[in-house]
């Protein structure tokens, strides 16, 4: 009963944020015009309306939903897998790797598609590197090894980004690198989504289908093995899926912090730690949160506030309140 009520409220909130996002924006679009653009077959007298709706606003809303849901799913998976509530999707260094790739591409003056490809490759490479090194470490706890190696390689990438920033032209490339690292959806196009969406779905599918097994990973490895679970294989599947998802979102939207960390916590207070319900709920709440913050980002002032800043501004205090309440963290 409680669950169905939650689902009802969340669905309603998602619909409301979508409605808000569709109607809010710099370019004035009335409900009638939106209605006409969607349902009427004849072309509008002003071709700009169609560009605003189909090529700018709608892709951006889609991207916000996709990125919010993806980051939250990845965050939920990682938190469950690493049995650690402070873990976020970039724990294995995927964001740092993507940041390094993107910064290098910007330094080389490459076009957007290459920046995105470099970011994606950088993110994936770092996680592969982390996993390979973890295989060679002799620590007893494989989970702790992964986290520590992730932090180390992430720091290394951070140093690489700083080095690139030092060499970048302070008038041209440096601001672009800074903006990219702050994250945002202001430059999303349909093409970006067309490339990222299938890859994100490929990553989401195993997470979603195997979500009940995520619960087993929260048990100590010995216990999980005792009930017949191949812990290593399961962990690898989750890492590959969550990494693919995160690398895709980072390559189209830059580094957007806090969503993947905070949303699973919010949802855990609603459903408990069972991933069967937690994962879908996290995805929905993540989508709502990002859609809402992005609507703020593009509606306030003529110049946009980077999305990463708004999510942190909203996420950090919320997280602190949760910590102070110490409920089911």
């Amino acid at each position, binding site marked *: 009963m409680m669950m169905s009520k939650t689902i009802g409220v969340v669905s309603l909130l998602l619909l409301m944020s979508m409605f808000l996002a569709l109607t809010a924006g*710099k*370019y004035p679009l009335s409900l009638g015009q939106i209605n006409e653009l969607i349902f009427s077959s004849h072309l509008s007298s002003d071709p*700009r309306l169609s560009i605003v709706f189909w090529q700018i606003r709608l892709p951006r809303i889609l991207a916000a939903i996709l990125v919010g849901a993806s980051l939250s799913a990845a965050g939920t998976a990682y938190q469950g897998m690493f049995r650690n509530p402070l873990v976020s999707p970039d724990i294995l260094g995927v964001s740092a790797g993507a940041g390094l790739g993107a910064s290098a591409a910007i330094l080389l*003056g490459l076009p957007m598609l290459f920046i995105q490809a470099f970011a994606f490759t950088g993110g994936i490479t770092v996680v592969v590197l982390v996993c390979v090194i973890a295989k060679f470490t002799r620590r007893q706890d494989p989970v702790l090894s992964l986290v520590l190696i992730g932090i180390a390689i992430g720091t290394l990438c951070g140093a690489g980004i700083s080095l690139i920033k030092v060499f970048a032209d302070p*008038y041209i490339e440096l*601001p672009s690198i800074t*903006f990219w690292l702050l994250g945002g959806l202001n430059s999303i*196009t349909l093409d970006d989504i067309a490339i990222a969406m299938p890859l994100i779905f490929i990553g989401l599918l195993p997470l979603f289908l195997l979500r009940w097994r995520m619960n087993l990973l929260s048990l100590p490895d010995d216990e999980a093995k005792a009930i017949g679970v191949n812990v290593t294989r399961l962990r690898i599947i989750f890492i590959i899926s969550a990494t693919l998802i995160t690398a895709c979102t980072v390559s189209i939207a830059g580094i957007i912090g806090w969503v993947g960390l905070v949303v699973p916590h919010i949802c855990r207070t609603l459903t408990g730690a069972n991933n069967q319900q937690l994962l879908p709920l996290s995805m929905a709440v993540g989508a709502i949160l990002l859609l809402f913050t992005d609507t703020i980002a593009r509606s306030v002032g*003529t110049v946009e506030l980077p999305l990463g800043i708004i999510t942190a501004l909203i996420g950090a205090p919320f997280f602190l309140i949760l910590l102070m309440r110490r409920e089911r963290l």
Partner: protein
Amino acid sequence: MDTKKRLLLKALASCGLLTAVPSTLWAMNQSLVFPFGKLPAANKIQRVLSAGAPADILLLALVPEKLLGFSAFEIPRNNPWFSQSIQTLPKLGRLSGRASTLSIEQLLALKPDIIIDSGSVTDTFRSQAERITALTGIPYLLVSGKLSDSAEQIRQVADVLGVVARAEPLANMAEKILTDARTFSLTQRKPLQFYAARGAKGLETGLAGSLHTEAAELLGLENVAKQAGRHGLGQVSMEQLLLWQPDVVLTQDESTYQHILTNSQWQGINAVQQRQVLHYPRFPFGWLDAPPGINRLLGLRRLHAHFDPKMQAGLQADTQAFFELFFHSTLSDESYQQLVKQP
């Protein structure tokens, strides 16, 4: 202007006696240079170090033979626009607080008689200059780098470096470019609106009042990206741009320019439809920005010529004269065509 006169003006200013002086006259007489440490006599200055990109251009114009190298540029050996002697100037690195790429030890090893920096003269930059002088004992000259003050900036730095006679034609040319631009700006009844596109998708921009768009604004063009209290760089959305509908879009990077021409979202912008997307690529100095030095004078002239047929007729001669005076390089007719051709 001699030092005594400048001191007198400063003293008067501090007493509040200059409030009645028109602001333009005040700008002409105001000191744009801020010395730290005891400046050597002009004839003793043989080795000059540039602290940053805008100073590179200023010093290249004034004292190419005394310039130890560029702080930010490395002109390729086969660059068709610069003479051999300028192509061989090494890139030494910049002095910029903790973002410096030239170490203090390297700086000392270069044994400059003076360090010159141009650009912002806020307390941050002053304290930085002060620290370097205190640490190395090398005098440091900080120069206010506003484009509108270019002529006076050239004269005042030339005064310190003892190259007043050489600087005069440069200052005159700067003055002429600025005056022509101001005159043009007064003839515009309805100012043209521009957007300065940056970044791979063209959605980063210099906001109104920023040094990135100073040249176009001096010409009387109106920057569409305005945000009260902000004068740096910002990100905007395509929706906002469709609403602004600038008359002209300025670009300097090939990737930005190509994206704007080919991306379907940008086709909703009138300026794109009417092919009013100007692409002024770096050579390696930027025309309107990057760096925000006196190189922008040339960009200002080029932009002016784009809108004013009278200026267009003389643009090639003006550009060639500018290269001769400021870059000490002869620009052949053929090289000029290469320099300004739109890809």
